[in-house]
């Protein structure tokens, strides 16, 4: 790893990209000054609270709010009646699809409550205590219905039905009966039957993973202020305030221009803050009360009512020749969607075999609803699940064939020109480079003891681009204001400031970045899909290009020069040829001083639909130790190697690798939604939903591999999501190495591990 704590170069010659500058927003975040979602307040604000269903599945017969409305201090009560119904229409929402017919039902239950914690009503009152009392006065008549939690049970023909009008899409003929299976999808490449015939070894396994939550430390929060004419201001913690604006406009029947959304600092999201929960409720309450309304979720509400990602059941069957060539791969994925369709099974299907160059692949996926909270995106949505299953089977093939697991992956690795089963031919990608990097580590070559095991796994994620705006404004003193519309969730401002300073050839400290509100920039898609640094930097290059062209044009006028007699470099317009002998270069600051006399304010505005997001592949290596007495697993050592294309800010790239790895460790070893027979979540808190703490993990070595993405001016690839893909498989493979047991169910928590050891007579003291 490169050394920490070094600041970028000073001076005006650029060279910040690739250095560890101090993030411009850092000072506010280490002093407590930064304002997150719950830190905003307005004069006269009311406190909003949500009444949530205690039942996993119930028809809502009647809601009587009269007593709550009569309570002094209560200023507004809303229910399903305050939201117009929406027609069924699927709309692309980043990496997933959404349907407003479902969204309106998820933010406020209509016909039925579909999971414990489903919003049923909301109140706004002059204090939190009065709001809480008001909730108790709302009388809801429920007709409790049988519920279903498990994905396989939900697929049975006799399972309790969540939606009478849900018919399985993607099957012929169109089913006559409704079902909890929303969709069947399939991708096919080549002929797997023919492929399996060539196989010398075939491994077939079934895996199960639990629903896990994104686990951001900041609960959802929203503060809305609606005036008499419907003009709406909203402050909230979100990964995409333009998306929030679009959703709220649609759900509340408002013109988009009437809503101005400001993204607060965001306390983690990981995909979970790409949808709306409180935002439309706060606006509806404020509209009714004519006062600002602030709403903040409790941690219990975050667990019960905001999106986890799917738990799933996955079957994998792979065949290889005796020298290790993968000849066929089949997988069947059943993903929980929660109460409404739209699990990440599509990307799960597409990613399953994406790391490998294979001729014969078939993957089937099912999107299944059950009485759980609707899933939301979670870092590489869907991919960790399917790739965990495949990486586990790859490891078994290596063992059966007596091959080194890195060599086996190398032999089959997707590379430039490989046709992926999901469609495209890859450009330059870095899987081989990450495998090579891992093999060269000291970590890979260190001996282990009894009860210790080493595992390796690779991972793939697409990454996306999309609609993005960025502006660069040259101020009167030559400093530059940088504005983007994607919330900064982990160092984005630092990465983009490095880039802007280099593009304009000015010191890093002279560029000040902000996240603009929805009124300040054109539509900008959310921070997600590992797109914000990729797309934002492309928009900044575009904005900088405009500034440079404008300054060159002004120089031509001032110097009476022709366009080919000037150029912009190192922060100044420079005269060329013989002109250089007569005229001094003009810096950006020089132009700023005379802006008024030379054509007015100077700025650039990048408005792009970023294309060409290169996939990022990674390989993880983990050592762990199993305690045979308790079943507890300790992670001893961990190394991540991943292709970043070009790291704009290496420290924050490493941070993505390290953070993703540790989320994966939690997913693999401890985290799970635990339901009782009553369909209620039993561990809706950080004590019982066990995320990794500092003492659970070692240092995470991060190797930044850079295989340039040719579609980006600096070679950047998104890096945020891939790091959570390999850990599940790597840890399962290390568990097998430590115990000889192939664990096929996540999490591999102590009770499960102990049970497996006992069944094989392996317990005892180490």
């Amino acid at each position, binding site marked *: 790893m490169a050394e920490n704590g070094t600041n970028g170069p000073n001076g005006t010659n650029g060279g910040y990209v690739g250095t560890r500058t101090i993030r411009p927003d850092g000072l506010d975040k280490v*002093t407590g000054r930064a304002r997150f979602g719950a830190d905003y307040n307005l004069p006269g604000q009311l406190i909003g609270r949500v009444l949530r269903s205690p039942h996993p599945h119930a028809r809502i017969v009647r809601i009587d709010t009269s007593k709550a409305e009569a309570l002094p201090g209560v200023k507004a009560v809303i229910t399903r009646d305050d939201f117009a119904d929406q027609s069924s229409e699927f709309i692309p929402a980043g990496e997933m699809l959404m349907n407003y017919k479902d969204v309106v039902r998820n933010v406020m239950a209509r016909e039925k409550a579909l999971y414990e914690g489903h919003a049923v009503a909301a109140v706004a009152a002059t204090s939190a205590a009065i709001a809480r009392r008001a909730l108790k006065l709302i009388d809801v008549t429920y007709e409790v219905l049988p519920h279903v939690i498990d994905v396989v049970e939900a697929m049975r023909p006799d399972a309790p039905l969540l939606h009478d009008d849900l018919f399985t899409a993607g099957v012929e003929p169109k089913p006559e009966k409704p079902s909890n299976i929303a969709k069947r999808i399939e991708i096919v490449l080549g002929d797997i039957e023919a492929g399996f015939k060539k196989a010398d070894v075939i491994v077939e396994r079934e895996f199960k993973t639990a629903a896990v939550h994104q686990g951001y430390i900041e609960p959802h929060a929203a503060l809305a202020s609606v005036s008499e004419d419907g003009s709406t201001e909203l402050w909230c913690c979100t990964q995409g305030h333009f998306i929030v604006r679009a959703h709220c406009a649609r759900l509340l029947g408002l013109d988009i221009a009437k809503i101005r959304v400001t993204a607060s600092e965001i306390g983690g999201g990981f995909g979970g803050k790409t949808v709306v929960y409180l935002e439309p409720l706060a606006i509806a309450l404020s509209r009714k009360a004519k006062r600002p309304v602030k709403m903040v979720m409790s941690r219990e509400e975050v667990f019960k009512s905001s999106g986890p990602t799917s738990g799933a059941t996955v079957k994998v069957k792979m065949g290889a020749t005796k020298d290790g060539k993968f000849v066929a791969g089949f997988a069947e994925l059943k993903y929980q969607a929660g109460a409404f369709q739209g699990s990440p099974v599509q990307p799960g299907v597409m990613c399953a075999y994406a790391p490998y160059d294979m001729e014969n692949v078939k993957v089937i996926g099912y999107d299944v609803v059950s009485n759980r909270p609707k899933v939301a995106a979670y870092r590489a949505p869907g991919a960790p699940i399917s790739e965990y299953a495949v990486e586990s089977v790859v490891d078994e093939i290596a063992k059966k064939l007596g091959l080194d697991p890195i060599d086996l992956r190398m032999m089959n690795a997707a590379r430039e020109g490989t046709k992926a089963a999901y469609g495209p031919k890859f450009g330059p990608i870095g899987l081989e480079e990450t495998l090579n990097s891992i093999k060269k580590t000291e970590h890979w070559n260190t001996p282990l003891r009894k009860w210790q095991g080493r595992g390796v796994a690779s991972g793939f994620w697409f990454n996306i681009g999309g609609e993005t705006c960025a502006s660069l404004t040259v101020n009167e003193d030559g400093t530059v204001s940088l504005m983007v519309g994607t919330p900064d969730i982990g160092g984005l401002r630092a990465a983009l400031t490095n880039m802007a300073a280099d593009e304009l050839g000015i010191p890093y400290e002279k560029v000040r970045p902000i996240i603009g509100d929805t009124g300040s920039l054109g539509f900008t898609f959310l921070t997600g899909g590992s797109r914000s640094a990729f797309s934002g930097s492309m928009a900044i290059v575009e904005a900088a290009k405009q500034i440079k062209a404008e300054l060159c044009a002004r120089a031509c006028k001032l110097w009476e020069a022709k366009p080919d007699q000037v150029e912009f470099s190192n922060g100044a317009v420079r005269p060329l040829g013989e002109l250089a002998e007569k005229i001094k270069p003009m810096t950006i600051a020089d132009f700023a001083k005379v802006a008024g006399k030379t054509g007015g304010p100077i700025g650039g505005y990048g408005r792009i639909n970023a294309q060409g997001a290169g996939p990022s592949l990674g390989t993880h290596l983990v050592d762990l130790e199993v305690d045979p007495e308790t079943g507890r697993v300790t992670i001893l050592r961990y190394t991540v190697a991943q292709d970043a294309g070009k790291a704009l800010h290496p420290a924050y790239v490493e941070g993505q690798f390290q953070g993703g790895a540790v989320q994966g460790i939690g997913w693999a070893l401890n985290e799970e939604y635990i339901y009782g027979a009553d369909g209620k979540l039993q561990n809706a808190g950080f004590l019982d939903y066990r995320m990794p703490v500092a003492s659970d993990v070692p240092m995470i070595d991060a190797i930044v591999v850079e295989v340039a993405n040719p579609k980006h001016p600096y070679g950047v690839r998104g890096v945020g999501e891939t790091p959570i893909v390999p850990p599940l498989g790597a840890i399962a493979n290390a568990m097998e190495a430590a115990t000889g047991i192939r664990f096929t169910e996540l999490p591999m928590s102590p009770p499960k591990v102990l049970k497996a050891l006992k069944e094989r007579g392996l317990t005892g003291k180490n």
Partner: protein
Amino acid sequence: MAKHHIEATVNGDDVEFLCETEETLLDVLRDTLHLTGSKEGCASGDCGACSVMLDGRLVCSCLVLGCEVSGRRVETIEGMAKGESLHPLQQKFLEHAALQCGICTPGFIVAGKALLERNPNPTETEIRYWLAGNLCRCTGYDKIVSAVKDAAVAMRKG
């Protein structure tokens, strides 16, 4: 019931406030005294985002009642920088990129300060166990541990 009238010291300043019996110190800090640097991540003492010092002892302010701080000394993240100069932990968190989203950062820095006051030269393991009461979901803790270690070095040098 009437509110309680409480006098205490917060970051060296004398403060007076009124609070309901059920209001926590965190509620008082955030909603009454407008010190929003301490964060509420769980309200159950599991995440440490609300960490403050109470009479020199590290506590989760969500587990302390506002009335309990009567006559006592509270120190929050807002009191850590002295004038222009940051506390070494704040500086090292910046230099090491030990924060991503930053919501847990105030809690980690307050908890880190409590550690270094009692143990100026902690091992990695000691740092990890001391900070096990603070959840971070972004960083994987690697750069946080490095920052605390480096801050300890800087503080020992004075």
